């Protein structure tokens, strides 16, 4: 393998890896706040992409405006989803496994609603970062590769700062770690969980917006993406933002290298086998997650 090929593949893997990382980030966020593993994160991301499509492509709003509107709509949707659906189940002490299945059903619902609303055809919109590759020493790189790295890095940093540096963020973390103590301290637990959903769906919106020019939107696209994102979140360490990032990148790169060096047919089998082996050896992931407390 030539050096150029090597660099090319690393960038390709990184590109997909960041997408997995974004979805994994949303999963970790909700996990932290509520101990809920959100199986519908991939589909939330899909719907974010479609809303952007509506405002940017169909209604021809300027990119930044459409971007903002999408995030706001998705954020509100996430907040309402938590307030109206998930939080009441927490409150009534539902078996966590049932709430988890609720997210699976939500994913089926989103997929079919998208199909009904936007139709089955694959949709895409103009890549705002340009659609011509830059050729450097035999390596072809799309401008969005670099932009996505920057945006994801900024997002991760901003999230960290928000959770560690603001009052709301600290309250959220308190809820995540000790819900009972937090509520005794006057933190509104339901409000905080709902806010976390808001953050997470907002994040899904951003991911969807970033992905749409790279991956055409289809109602089903969230499925396979989500499974990789689960793997990324678990390998990185559930609940850890750095872990989501590292896990996503590892999966993206491992996948493309396995497909190149061994076979593309079994690349998903390889990823899943690695995941299982990894969990058996180091159940907490790279950035050890606390797996004993929450279910």
């Amino acid at each position, binding site marked *: 393998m030539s050096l150029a090929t090597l660099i090319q593949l690393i960038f390709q893997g990184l590109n997909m890896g960041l997408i997995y990382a974004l979805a994994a980030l949303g999963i970790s966020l909700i996990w932290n706040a509520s101990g809920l593993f959100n199986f519908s994160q991939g589909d939330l991301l899909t719907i974010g992409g479609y809303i952007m499509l509506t405002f940017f492509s169909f209604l021809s709003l300027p990119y930044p405006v459409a971007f903002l509107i999408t995030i706001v709509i998705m954020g509100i949707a996430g907040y309402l989803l938590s307030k109206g659906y998930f939080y009441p189940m927490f409150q009534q002490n539902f078996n966590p496994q049932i709430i988890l299945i609720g997210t699976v059903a939500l994913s089926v619902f989103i997929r079919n609603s998208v199909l009904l609303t936007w139709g089955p055809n*694959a949709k895409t919109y103009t890549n705002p970062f340009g659609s011509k590759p830059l050729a450097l020493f035999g390596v072809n790189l799309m401008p969005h590769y670099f932009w996505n790295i920057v945006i994801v890095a900024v997002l991760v940093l901003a999230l960290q700062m928000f959770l560690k540096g603001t009052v709301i963020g600290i309250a959220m973390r308190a809820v995540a770690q000790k819900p009972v103590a937090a509520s005794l301290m006057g933190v509104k637990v339901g409000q905080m969980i709902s806010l976390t959903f808001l953050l997470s769906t907002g994040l899904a919106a951003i991911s969807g917006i970033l992905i749409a020019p790279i991956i055409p939107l289809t109602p089903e*696209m969230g499925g396979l993406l989500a499974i990789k994102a689960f793997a990324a979140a678990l390998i990185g360490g559930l609940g850890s933002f750095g872990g989501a990032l590292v896990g996503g990148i590892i999966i993206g790169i491992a996948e493309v290298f396995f497909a190149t060096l061994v076979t593309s047919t079994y690349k998903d089998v390889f990823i899943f086998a690695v995941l299982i082996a990894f969990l058996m050896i180091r159940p907490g992931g790279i950035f050890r997650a606390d797996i004993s407390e929450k279910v």
Partner: protein
Amino acid sequence: MDRKGLKKIIALIVVASMTFFLITGCSGSKESGEANKGSGEGKTQVLKIAHLAPLTGSAASYGVQIVEAAKMAVEEINAAGGFTGPNGEKITIDYTEVDETSNSAAAIDAAKNAVSMNPHVILGPNRSGGVLAAHKVWQEAKIPAITDATSAQTTKQGNPYTFRMQISSEYWIPILVKTAVEKYNIKKPAVIYGLNDYSKANWVATEPAMAKYGLKPVTVQTFNDGDQDFSAQLVAIKNSGADSIFLYGYTPECGKIIRQRVELGMGNLLVFTERASTDPAAVEIAGKENFEGVVTSTTLSPGDPDPKIQEFIKKFESKYHRTISATHVNHYDSVYIVKSIVEKVGLDREKIREELSKLNNYQGVLGVYSADKEGNLVHHMYTQVYKNGKWELLLEETYPVQ
């Protein structure tokens, strides 16, 4: 027994009867269409068509297209007050779409549902898996079914009731290869195909077609439906020194691969692909500029100057505000084929089947149809190239019927 216990019993009965009667209950009402079956002259009769299509699930994009095309034909016929049967009776079409959920097991449910409506003809299912899973259902009910873009396997099951609106890949792939060799002078083809029955069958037909010209694929790559990144496969193709790519898959993947090849600096590699890539969605996904020079084999070319086809394209696009794709056109014709047969033999399923199997040089709106031994109906093929944002016809060939 206290009231609470009574409530429980009621709940039980409700649940038990709900599952029981809701399932059995919906059968009775469907028979009504059949009331007109007797050949009362002068009376209006109803030709029942049930269309099995993947309206939801992963293949939904095809489902919508074929249903639109078939509906358009039905609406045209009914708007003209139906047509006249062999005994002078007026016949209108009752058309129902049945969702087969893009899933083989569900196709059996859907086919059983369709059969329970007692149609004269079934259209679809659209996917080979669905046909293979469900073909016994319409065979047992003795209802002829005209399927669409399925693999050659579907008409090789020895089921005389299955007809296929698709040219065998054993026919069109040699034409595609011939075009590639003779017009584009390719030397080192690479092949990439999706891991589904349909695309796989295309690859199987490709190997011998290439061997005829003494060519052997320099590399063969595969991908899974729903994959998003193809760089591993494309880099392998690049490293193999290929000068061209033969691409078989469903529309979204075809579009993504055609685009990603440009993003990886392989835009100079010629692409020879199939009718899935003629779907406007493929062009949209790939981007017009990345589609330049792509050669496809298809059953309808928007670049065909034939006025009948141009008129149809206009009609379709003004009705559905959507660019036409080759995938749906045959379903438009299939309704007309059925109409023409019923005009001749009336609403007898067995006679309809017989006529379908004898179909010879039927001049459809969009092509000429003849049935072969296995029940394949389409025998006309176009090869086209995407140039300056438009499809240009390269050549037209008709497949001899055995």
